[in-house]
């Protein structure tokens, strides 16, 4: 009887423990993970359309960073490692400073509930991976690794110099069909799974599920993959924080030369970091950006007492976007707040006084990139001004009564394409 009671008690505690881990995991996930990965784990959180690379889709259950066979699920430790230490080169932070190991484990458990695969399958571990500790690289292993780099045709994507500019690098896409640039192997601080010889070897051995990076387990031997890791790590250049002053200057000079050679690439970087899509994309009621409408404009505000403003369509559409604008017209808006019809903008919501400081070469790059954004037809209404009485009354409240003047953001698309 006492035995039975004990069993029941243990089961009860066990069950209670699982249930509370699930609740804790969900609570932490909703607070700290959902903004990027989405409440339902589909990698479609509010900020997701902006992030490069995109946040992981847990429902698709394709995990890049594993110690398991290609195509397999990750182990619990794999998930826990990514949550604890973060993923370099991405916006995924390491949570070790803010979450206990129990909390991290609870989140990992909750993440597994997004895909039925975790209940149906077991991760296929690789016994040799944990056992084998790579020796320090030697000139011989590095030279051999160079041969493996050629044999496995790594240069097709990563380039002969490892800078990620191989012949087919621009055509690469992930499983969801989104463009995915080949990793620049000269910047090991951005390696998603870490930059120790063991980390690098693991990516060759396990492949990166959901991406064009395959496992080379059948194409090369264990030793060859170890040597390849040794070679790849020799491609590294110095990061700016390790450079001397002269090296930093030379590095920035080289970047400027590269930007002039490939303005579209530089322009994509400037646009993706400077925040154009914050305003130039419709926003849903829950504050998420409408994914398919990036840069199509249509976000509307009322800035009392100045009137209503709708963000413009920045796509290359000839009728409703920037397609028919000249380079100079785009630059006049960006740097001086002067529209093609000669009318003037306020210094906000469009922050052109900031963009006035862009260098001539960056301005060219931004224009070059905007021209490559596929057209979306979305006609944007002109700003509307309040009548003179409301305007003066508004300014009186603002300047004399020191009243907080509301800035209202409207959800949905105020352009002709409508929709959300």
């Amino acid at each position, binding site marked *: 009887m006492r035995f039975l009671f004990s069993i029941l008690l243990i089961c009860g505690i066990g069950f209670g423990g699982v249930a509370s881990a699930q609740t804790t995991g969900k609570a932490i996930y909703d*607070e700290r993970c959902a*903004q990027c990965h989405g409440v339902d784990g589909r990698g479609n959180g*509010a*900020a997701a359309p*902006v992030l*490069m690379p995109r946040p992981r889709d847990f429902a698709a259950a394709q995990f890049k960073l594993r110690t398991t066979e290609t195509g397999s699920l990750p182990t619990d430790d794999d998930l826990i490692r990514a949550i604890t230490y*973060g993923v370099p*080169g*991405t*916006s*995924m*932070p390491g*949570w070790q*400073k*803010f979450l206990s190991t129990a909390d991290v484990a609870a989140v990992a458990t909750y993440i597994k509930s997004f895909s039925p695969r975790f209940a149906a399958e077991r991760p296929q571990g690789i016994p040799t991976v944990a056992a084998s500790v790579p020796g320090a690289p030697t000139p011989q292993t590095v030279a051999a690794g160079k041969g493996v780099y050629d044999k496995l045709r790594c240069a097709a994507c990563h380039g002969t110099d490892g800078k990620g500019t191989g012949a087919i690098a621009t055509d690469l896409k992930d499983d969801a069909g989104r463009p995915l640039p080949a990793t620049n192997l000269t910047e090991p*601080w951005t390696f998603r799974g870490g930059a120790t010889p063991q980390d690098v070897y693991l990516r060759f051995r396990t492949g990166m599920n959901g991406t064009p990076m395959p496992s080379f387990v059948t194409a090369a031997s264990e030793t060859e993959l170890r040597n390849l890791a040794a070679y790849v790590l020799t491609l590294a250049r110095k*990061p*700016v*924080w390790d450079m*001397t*002053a002269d090296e*930093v200057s030379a590095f920035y000079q080289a970047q400027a030369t590269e930007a002039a050679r490939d303005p579209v690439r530089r322009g994509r*970087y400037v646009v*993706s*970091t*400077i*925040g154009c899509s*914050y305003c130039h994309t419709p926003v*849903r*009621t*829950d*504050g998420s950006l409408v994914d398919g409408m990036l840069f199509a404009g249509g976000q509307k505000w009322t*800035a009392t007492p*100045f009137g209503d403003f709708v963000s413009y369509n920045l796509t290359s559409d000839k009728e409703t976007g920037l397609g028919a604008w000249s380079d100079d017209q785009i630059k006049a808006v960006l*740097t001086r*707040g002067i529209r093609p019809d000669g*009318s003037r*903008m306020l*210094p*906000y919501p469009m*922050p052109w*006084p*900031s*963009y*006035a*400081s862009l260098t001539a070469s960056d301005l060219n790059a931004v224009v070059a990139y905007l021209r490559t954004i596929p057209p979306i037809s979305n006609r944007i209404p002109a700003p509307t001004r309040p009548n*003179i009485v409301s305007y*003066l009354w508004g*300014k009186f409240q603002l*300047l004399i009564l*020191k*009243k*907080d*003047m*509301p*800035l*209202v*953001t*409207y*959800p949905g698309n105020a352009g002709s394409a409508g929709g959300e």
Partner: protein
Amino acid sequence: MNVRRVVKWTVGVLLIIGVVGFLAFLYLIPPFTLMAPEEFSGPEAAAANVVKLDAIKDPKTRALAERGKYIVVTMGCVDCHAPPGPTGPDFARYMAGGLKAAYKGHGTFVSANLTSDRQYGLGRRTDEDVLRVLRSGVSADGGRQLWYRDMPWAWFSNWTEEDRVAVLTYLRQVPAVSHKIPPPVTEGPMTYDSAAIEEGSAVNAGTTP
């Protein structure tokens, strides 16, 4: 009799001039669209008046800070991170924070003090604390995940780590301003509907202790 009439007229005319003048003043005071673009003092001028990068002795720090300055200026960080005033940001207290955004149901958030002040600014944060916010939107205070529409960290996460370090190097050069920022008041998830109003373009929510 005549004197009274003159006084009456004079007072009347002065009154009309006063009212019209006041209305004209209201109409014309910035920000106003008839102002020439060159007359707006943008973030670059704001930075130039306060942050003196030429004084940095170490040439490497100076090179990184110059790069960081370019990013911070063109990004317009100061548009939110300067104390707001009725005619625009108070650039004299460069990066001292205090712009309030209040949303019904979502909460009230005030832009942080990014100066090197050790009590209220970034001076109290480690390098990694600052980089983490700029990379992942995770605040050093308890690891709170900042909402990407309050602080647009999602775009800054696209900076290369090298540019992010340059931004940090620049921010470390911003002179301290003692300006206390109230902690956020979080109510719930963001909802934009007709009732959700963002407030606070004119009034500084920070305090000078």
